[in-house]
């Protein structure tokens, strides 16, 4: 293992993480909900009456974030090197998997760990392990991202 010091950015990472934590904190205290994106989005796929308004408003804020970032004059680069077919397969796996496992990086990884939920800690360890193994496998077979 060697550290990638070129891309290592601990300060913006902690600051960005603190904002994510703040959003999760406000969401539970003001609205009584867990800020888990896959769950909030998944609720739109299987809609219950009167349950989609808050979901749409939260997701609209999320999608509007780059607009605000551009107005403020900062817009970090995004390196999306995956081919179209990889993106489709990955999207299907992420959608199916987070729906089956009831959560993703925000719901299990942030909120679940912060609540010390054994289910979420297990889920996070599993998706981290499989993410690491997948990236490792892709490098070994020479099939870059």
């Amino acid at each position: 293992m060697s550290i990638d010091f070129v891309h290592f950015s601990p300060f913006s990472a902690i600051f960005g993480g603190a904002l994510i934590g703040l959003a999760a904190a406000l969401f539970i205290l003001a609205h009584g909900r867990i800020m888990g994106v896959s769950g909030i989005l998944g609720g739109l796929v299987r809609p219950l009456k009167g349950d989609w308004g808050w979901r749409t408003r939260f997701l609209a804020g999320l999608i509007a974030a780059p607009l605000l970032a551009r107005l403020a004059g900062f817009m970090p680069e995004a390196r999306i090197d995956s081919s179209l077919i990889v993106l489709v397969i990955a999207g299907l796996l992420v959608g199916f998997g987070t729906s089956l496992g009831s959560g993703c990086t925000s719901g299990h990884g942030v909120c679940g760990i912060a609540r010390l939920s054994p289910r979420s800690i297990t889920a996070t360890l599993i998706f981290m392990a499989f993410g690491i193994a997948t990236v490792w496998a892709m490098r070994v077979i020479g099939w870059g991202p």
Partner: protein
Amino acid sequence: MTMRRISEFLIGLVFGVGLLLSGMTDPGKVIGFLDIGGLWDPSLAFVMGGAVVISFFAFRIARGWPASLYGRVIMLTDGKAIDLRLVLGSALFGIGWGLSGFCPGPALVSLGAGEWKAFVFVAAMGIGMALEAYLERRSQT
């Protein structure tokens, strides 16, 4: 009532800005974080650390409240036991995350940034979610 709705939007906005600042919306950086056997970028561990520490206190406080600030039920009941659904679902999610460097939140932010590749990912993700929901409904009847 209106303030409540605006705050739902604003919290989404804060979350999205946090994701952008943190580097989570850059799939190259996410893959660099997962690549512990190669050239490893540990930054995203700091994201999770910052987010967990802040929200930890909020969940502690919320546990003692009878209802949320807007009078809603605080949903903190933990689900069922650790079962096959949780394990299999998280494993599949992890594979998709490693393949693309995208998870649901950052993918939606990238969609808002106008990245067409994020649009493809989000569309496939929606189909994956709908498919799982459909299979779940079918297995119940």
